């Protein structure tokens, strides 16, 4: 890949956490990658609590090869793929069963006007990684910035799906937008607040302890999309 000036970029990331570990817990992470389609590779993870053996989380991700000069995705020959596929299991093994297709679900793009937003987010120096780009984990922090306080204070993140569309540089300024995700066929969410984001208008969906949001991170300057996402929140367990 290096000879061809190719680098890996994350295209999609889906993480589910069933139980958050606490300080001093020891977790074990198992990870492997496998081929996916013509240009992609897939990496899966399973997280276990070492002491109890229970699965506390799972994740899956899709990566594509990008030419670092043209910044465009590139198809490669089988030789190039084989170089790394020798280290991958040949038997397909998925962290999420095919029946559980939350990880594959299409994420709708949020359109204006949006319910919640945090504008003008700037990358800090600490957000830059070894490649001088905004590390993709920073995006998750930005997505969380525009989640309403009443959710953040009482709920924990159950699942997050992110589609990475465009990279972000040190000098970019980003807007984080959040909207409610309406599930198909559910009762109409009684919003009735004419767009004003007040604390009282929470979703009245089927399961009222689980909240779902759609997210968009875009450049402040021209509105181009950096990534879009979807989060699910559950009420924090009492301890």
């Amino acid at each position, binding site marked *: 890949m290096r000879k061809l000036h190719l680098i890996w970029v994350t295209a999609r990331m889906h993480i589910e956490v069933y139980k958050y570990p606490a300080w001093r817990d020891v977790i074990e992470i*198992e*990870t492997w*990658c496998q081929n996916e389609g013509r240009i992609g590779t897939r990496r899966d993870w399973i997280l276990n609590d070492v002491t109890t053996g229970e699965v506390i989380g799972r994740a899956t991700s899709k990566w594509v090869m990008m030419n670092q000069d043209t910044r465009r995705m590139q198809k490669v020959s089988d030789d190039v793929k084989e170089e790394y596929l020798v280290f991958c299991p040949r038997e397909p093994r998925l962290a999420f069963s095919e029946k559980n297709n939350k990880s594959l679900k299409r994420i709708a793009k949020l359109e204006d006007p949006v319910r919640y937003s945090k504008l003008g987010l700037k990358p800090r120096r600490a957000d830059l990684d070894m490649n001088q780009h905004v590390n993709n984990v920073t995006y998750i922090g930005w997505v969380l910035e525009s989640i309403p306080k009443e959710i953040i204070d009482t709920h924990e993140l159950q699942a997050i799906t992110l589609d990475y569309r465009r990279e972000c540089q040190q000098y970019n300024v980003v807007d984080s937008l959040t909207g409610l995700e309406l599930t198909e066929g559910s009762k109409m969410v009684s919003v009735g607040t004419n767009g004003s984001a007040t604390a009282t208008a929470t979703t009245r969906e089927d399961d009222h302890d689980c909240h779902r949001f759609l997210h968009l991170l875009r450049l402040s300057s021209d509105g181009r999309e950096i990534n879009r996402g979807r989060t699910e929140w559950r009420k924090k367990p009492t301890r």
Partner: protein
Amino acid sequence: MVATAATSSFFPVTPSPDSSDSKKKRLGNGSINLGGIKSKTSSGNLQVKANAQAPPKINGTKVVTPPAEVCKNEDGVSFHPPRTFINQLPDWSMLLAAITTVFLAAEKQWMMLDWKPKRPDMLIDPFGIGKIVQDGLVFRQNFSIRSYEIGADQTASIETVMNHLQETALNHVGSAGLLVDGFGSTPEMCKKNLIWVVTRMQVVVDRYPTWGNVAQVDTWVSASGKNCMRRDWLVRDSKTGEVLTRASSIWVMMNKVTRRLSKMPEEVRGEIEPYFMNSEPVVAEDGRKLVKFDDSSAEFVRKGLTPRWSDLDVNQHVNNVKYIGWILESAPLPILETRELSSMTLEYRRECGRDSVLQSLTAVSDNGTDEIECQHLLRLEDGSEVMRGRTQWRPKNAKISGNVGQIPADTA
């Protein structure tokens, strides 16, 4: 040899005990210092247990368990604290750290190809939670430098260093059986609603570690005057013994209800005095006063700094390590790009919370050496001071080119 070993670790066979590859060293469960943690699996190695636990769990069944009320390590390991309120709120930096460990595991898999045999001392402390050494007064813990702790200049950031210092400080108190509540308060302190607050911090970095280095952090406490405590740290490269960082801090007690500083009660002195080493400070006290300055003498001012969710710690306050990030944000770019922080002296004056809006002021002075010195002020909008500081910057070493496994930086 490497390729076969790596591939065989992915195929669904249980590796035989006499596997020749040193990467697959199995760590015994019992031979852990401090009475150990009962773990179900052998720990610390990077084997992928292909299919070992997979089938029942890959069917998408969520394993949602009731919250564990019981401390998982209650089998007599004294240094593990009971689950206290410090575990109640998800620390946002913990969430992000959990997510970044997911990425780290990916990178570790690639590093497996070049993985060196485990160091003998890591076998004794396989989870890296640290242990007491040297007559019970010094606490030592090793930290592998993670990829997400590396900054844009290829070395661990000062925040990473500071996080290690915080972690070892707390683990020290924990292993001494003194960790009860409120992030470091002893039992007697809890009874009196007292918490520790840092008033002064001095850090000297001789060399910043890089990805893959293992930093060995030693820490101990001493008395400081009648009412304060001093905590010292010495960080070395665990492989070469080279000193990486030296740090010294002063702590005083504050009543968490009245928010007023408190003298050290005799009961608390009784609890902690046995642990005082009473050695000389590891960093010589910087006697120079940190002077106040205002907008007119500041060359750089950055306003409107607000804490992010991930900056808040368990107490809903901005963690003191974040302040350092803020002062660096307003340091002049030319200095940041060509120099590295060699030392800093910080005075903490006031806490700040989630709704605070801060300003960071920086003044640059030349002290006649090849090091540039900056004065810093972090304050709230109403002018009240949160922190004063002085930093020194030395020229950075030339970057090592052609790092294996890293993507060359994009030249913007």
